[in-house]
């Protein structure tokens, strides 16, 4: 049997996600952003809400997210994506507005914006990529960097007396009455990706039902910043990140 006899529509079990553009992603090999982008694109496509979706991209590695998913996008200043999304969602109450933010963006410079948008219960989805380090800026400490974790600004490891504790921002967010769904997921195994997709789908459906803010933390790797191979980075994440940032739903109302 020739290859052309096998490659047929009825035999197709996997293909490129429709809403992902043909642009070559700038992310490092092994980075979780590619996986999360794909899942977001799949959910928007499967829900058939391309025309109703508006993404708000952050500052940081995902600053160019708008190059990869074929919907309207608004780029925001560092940390301000929830404020930008607030306005879009209020002006277009029937659209699916989401922010896509990293840990420096959301948990450091943008803590005020994320807390207040969630507390107001803005009808948006927040996708929060937590890899415990500043990726694009070159591997500096993030609020979520673990204790003893070496970064370029904590070369001897993060110390409480110098840098304080790793911030469990998702636990704080879960306490805010404006949020309806707060969950922590990952994307390191096929099973984890399926759970992540289910969570993102639920979050977008919550927007359709005008339930308030849905917040999805995705515990992620930064193999460049962590200076580990993709495989080792996944192993390190499971061993060190998951105990401090345990996966699962924190709130589902």
């Amino acid at each position, binding site marked *: 049997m020739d290859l052309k006899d096998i490659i047929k529509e009825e035999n197709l079990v996997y293909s490129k996600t429709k809403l992902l553009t043909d642009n070559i992603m700038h992310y490092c090999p092994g980075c979780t952003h590619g996986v999360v982008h794909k899942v977001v694109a799949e959910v928007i496509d499967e829900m058939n809400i391309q025309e109703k979706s508006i993404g708000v991209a952050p500052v940081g590695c995902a600053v160019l997210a*708008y190059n990869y998913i074929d919907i309207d996008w608004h780029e925001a200043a560092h940390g301000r994506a929830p404020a*930008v999304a607030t306005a879009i969602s209020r002006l277009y109450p029937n659209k699916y507005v989401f922010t896509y933010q990293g840990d420096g963006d959301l948990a450091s410079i943008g803590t005020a914006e994320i807390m207040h948008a969630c507390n107001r219960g803005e009808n948006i989805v927040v996708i929060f990529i937590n890899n415990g380090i500043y990726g694009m800026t070159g591997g500096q400490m993030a609020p979520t960097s673990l204790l003893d974790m070496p970064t370029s600004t904590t070369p001897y490891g993060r110390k409480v007396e110098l840098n304080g504790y790793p911030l469990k921002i998702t636990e704080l967010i879960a306490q805010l009455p404006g949020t309806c769904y707060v969950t922590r997921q990952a994307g390191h195994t096929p099973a984890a990706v399926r759970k992540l997709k289910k969570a993102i789908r639920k979050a977008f459906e919550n927007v359709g039902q005008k339930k308030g803010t849905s917040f999805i933390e995705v515990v992620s790797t930064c193999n460049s910043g962590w200076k580990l191979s993709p495989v080792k980075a996944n192993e390190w994440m499971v061993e060190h990140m998951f105990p401090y940032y345990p996966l699962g739903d924190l709130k589902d109302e």
Partner: protein
Amino acid sequence: MADYKLMKGNEAIAEAAIRCGCDAYFGYPITPQSEVLETLMARMPWEETGMVVLQAESEVAAINMVYGGAGCGKKVMTSSSSPGISLKQEGITYIAGAELPCLIVNVVRGGPGLGTIQPAQSDYFQAVKGGGHGDYKLIVLAPASVQEMYDFVDLGFELAFKYRNPAMILSDGVIGQMMEKVQLGPYKPRMTDEEIIAKYGSWATTGKTPDRPRNIITSLDLEASRQEQFNLKLQKKYREIEEKEVRFEKIACDDAEYLFVAYGSSSRICQKAVDLAREKGIKVGLLRPITLFPYPTKAIQEMIGQLKGILTVEMSAGQMVEDVRLAVEGKVKVEHYGRMGGMIPSPNDVVAALEEKIIKG
């Protein structure tokens, strides 16, 4: 039958926003402009026109909400006072960089820092020379009356959309707080998405439709040569604005040998000073810039031949005076008179300064 109402300057801003079809206001309270947000909240325009009004958690959030709403192609505005405007500079430079229309109102108070809640004009540099990072300009309108506070909301939006550029009403605590009779305009309905697209094009984040590529609102371009081209395009736009949008008022200038140049509340004081000086036989006129960017440089230059001296009157250490000096290129003596920290000069002070600094000096 015209519709007149006695209003505070800040209330006029709010009323004008509702009547000119503004889609959203995002703000944060700060003296002396809190009545803008208070008036809007009391008027409940969301019931009347569907206008969104939201008290943000900070000035930073408020201007970024403006950024988001402006990206949707909507008429969106904010207002604040000096320390709050400093916080908004981050968002303002992003809005200018993304070439979005919006309206920002600054009811200036004395500084630096927390300063005072009394009026000043010490944010001139910040308003007309950039304020945030990067090479950009705002279209800056300087009202001198409560009526102009009202009128410039609509005008500000019109210019902002025409050039896809943020516009600022640069007012101060005198005009924000004083009450005057205002002639109210008719209600303009808010534009629908279809009307916005028909009038201004389909560049906004309204949700990607099959008939167009995705819209991306951003000020980022990592490629230096493209970023330079974008900057050159911005500068070309600013030159066009300078060519077409200069606005100013001349009072008693025909036979003037001396000239006051003043904007906003200082120009009101100078109007009286013109009368007092002319009673003393001093032939002085007043040139009042209405747009501070674009600046009425040519209007000043055209008067050079008839003038023996120019006095700028500003409630600052002397900021606009630099633009007057640039305009006359040393051909006429230019001096500055001003008070700071919330103090307001009197018309007699202004006449004395003219005599001291220009006529005798």
